[in-house]
């Protein structure tokens, strides 16, 4: 009879508890075991450091505390309840859990063998407000946890936060209607909330109009501190592409915005050249600003808008090093770096003369002579007059002395200094004994003292020959004109 009464008392206590906490579940009746999960949402977020990472996370929601209650047959009169506290993962230090379990025992003693489960659970719930002292205002230390738990705990926090948010109701400042959190979006940085439809409408509209600078939080007071310069800085804080995708804005829109931003940056960057093909005009040398091809590119961009004052962030700093690398790898290691490749049509061109790519060793100047400095013009003239280009690689070579059979120092091609034609390495001299080659026949040793560049030497390699031919053509024309004039004048006199 007494036994029955005690059992009733235990079961009655559990069923009362169950009506207060529906989440309480009775695992077995003999022995009498029940589980309850107690949510942990400290009033002040709990600071946590994972592994050796220097970042301190502040979590508002933590995996719940599981209490397993085993009630011995003689509870509550003669024995305290057996209480076991656990968490998965075990983020609460063991000594705290043990201390919390001990509280149950002392409560039982204090109550002198009365049912204590409700009081105990209330005590635990109260303790969650400070995360069992871990998030106490007097405790400035962060909780140190292994790195492996980071993902689980962060995800738990995010999901809980999300669920809480979804159930809340907000007044959207744009459509002025109350909306459930589930159809709203909270700004990452300032936590202002608007309904998704309004945000989508506004940002899409701004993107279509090309109004890049209004892609920011829509709250009128957001980013305003009263200090004008600070405000301007904060105002420049535009939403990242990643955040826009989260709202969510369509990929097409976000891509369009990213392309606009990219174009703006490229247009401000003087080192970027446009493709010379009129129908293309794509950008070249724009590696610094990767083309927007897929979402991952945007995901990697934590804040697409650099802070003011650091106009050229890290990528720029290592850019010169990279291009030097590239030059080093080129055959011959020439110091000019004129090759540019259009990102759209893949045309390889020279960014100085804008002709299609002619190799590293061709001397070229800007298309417009006005852009050429006096010095450059002089050296260009000299090269035209006193060098011969290699027929293979076009490198200009100047003969210092010796015969006119040349070997290119660059690509080892055998060629004739006089006419720049390719010579058979097996029998290069044949060229100078061939009667058909009028310009070169018997002239192996012409200009033996070298193509010095003195004004006395009128001949200068293949280019010199071209220049000379032009000179004589002009001369012939001039003489012809003179003769005509003389003739005309003569006619007039008679």
């Amino acid at each position: 009879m007494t036994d029955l009464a005690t059992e009733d008392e235990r079961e009655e206590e559990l069923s009362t508890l169950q009506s207060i906490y529906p989440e309480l579940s009775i695992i077995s009746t003999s022995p009498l075991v029940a589980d309850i999960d107690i949510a942990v949402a400290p009033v002040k977020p709990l600071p946590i450091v994972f592994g050796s990472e220097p970042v301190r996370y502040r979590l508002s929601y933590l995996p719940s505390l599981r209490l397993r209650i085993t009630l011995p047959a003689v509870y509550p009169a003669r024995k305290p309840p057996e209480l076991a506290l656990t968490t998965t993962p075990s983020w609460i230090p063991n000594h705290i859990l043990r201390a919390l379990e001990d509280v149950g025992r002392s409560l039982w003693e204090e109550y002198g063998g009365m049912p204590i489960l409700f009081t105990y659970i209330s005590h635990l719930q109260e303790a969650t407000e400070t995360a069992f002292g871990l998030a106490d205002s007097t405790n400035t230390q962060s909780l140190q946890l292994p790195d492996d738990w980071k993902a689980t705990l962060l995800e738990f926090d995010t999901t809980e936060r999300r669920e809480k948010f979804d159930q809340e109701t907000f007044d959207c400042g744009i459509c002025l209607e109350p909306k459930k959190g589930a159809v709203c979006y909270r700004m990452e940085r300032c936590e202002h909330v608007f309904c998704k439809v309004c945000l989508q409408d506004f940002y899409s509209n701004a993107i279509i109009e090309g109004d890049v600078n209004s892609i920011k939080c829509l709250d009128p007071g957001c980013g305003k501190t009263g200090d004008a310069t600070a405000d301007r800085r904060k105002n420049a804080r535009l939403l990242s592409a990643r955040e826009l995708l989260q709202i969510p804005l369509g990929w097409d829109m976000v891509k369009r915005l990213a392309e606009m931003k990219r174009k703006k940056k490229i247009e401000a960057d003087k080192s970027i050249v446009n493709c010379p093909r009129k129908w293309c005009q794509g950008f070249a040398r724009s590696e610094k600003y990767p083309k927007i091809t897929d979402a991952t590119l945007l995901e990697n961009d934590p804040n697409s808008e650099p802070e003011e004052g650091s106009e050229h962030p890290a990528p720029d700093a290592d850019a010169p090093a990279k291009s030097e690398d590239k030059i080093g790898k080129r055959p011959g290691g020439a110091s000019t770096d004129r090759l540019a490749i259009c990102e759209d049509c893949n045309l390889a061109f020279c960014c100085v003369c804008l002709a299609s790519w002619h190799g590293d060793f061709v001397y070229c100047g800007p298309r417009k002579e006005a852009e050429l400095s006096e010095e450059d013009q002089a050296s260009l003239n000299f090269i035209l007059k006193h060098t011969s280009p290699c027929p293979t690689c076009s490198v200009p070579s100047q003969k210092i002395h010796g015969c006119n059979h040349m070997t290119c120092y660059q690509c080892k091609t055998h060629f004739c200094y006089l006419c720049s034609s390719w010579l058979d390495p097996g029998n290069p001299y044949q060229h100078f004994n061939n009667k058909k080659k009028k310009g070169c026949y018997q002239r192996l040793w012409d200009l033996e003292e070298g193509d010095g560049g003195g004004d006395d030497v009128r001949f200068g390699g293949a280019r010199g020959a071209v220049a000379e031919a032009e000179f004589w053509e002009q001369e012939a024309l001039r003489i012809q004109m003179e003769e005509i004039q003389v003739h005309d004048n003569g006619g007039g006199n008679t």
Partner: protein
Amino acid sequence: MSTGAKKRIMREYNECTADTPAGMKINFDEQNMTEWEILLDGPDQSIYAGGHFKLKMTFPTEYPFKPPVVSFKTKIYHPNVSNDDKGSMCLGMLRADEWKPPNKVVAVLRLIQALLIEPNADDAIEPSIANEYKENRKEFEKNAKDWVKRYAK
């Protein structure tokens, strides 16, 4: 104009009638809800006291993404109102780049009232009037009162 925008204008009108700033009356035509006529009394503590001003508030198609356009139909001598037949105002939240969608008509109306009490000479649309306001307050007040008598009675 989207239904959302119409709904919002309607909602704002209801809000305005429930809480109209003192000395203001709004004439609203449901057939043409994007143009509001506002009758505004010069605030007592201002130099425009005793004047009755007619204003027009026009809502753009993109409202509330773009600010409403406010113009004084009654001529007024004021640094922030253009001295022409348009009587336009363009400052603070009424500027396209300053406007934020959660701003409301009530806030605009209060801004206008506040400006009648204290003009903003640093953000003036009429530099000469602003200058007079700053340099020769007496002359400014005389002119403003004169205009109230002439146009706003």
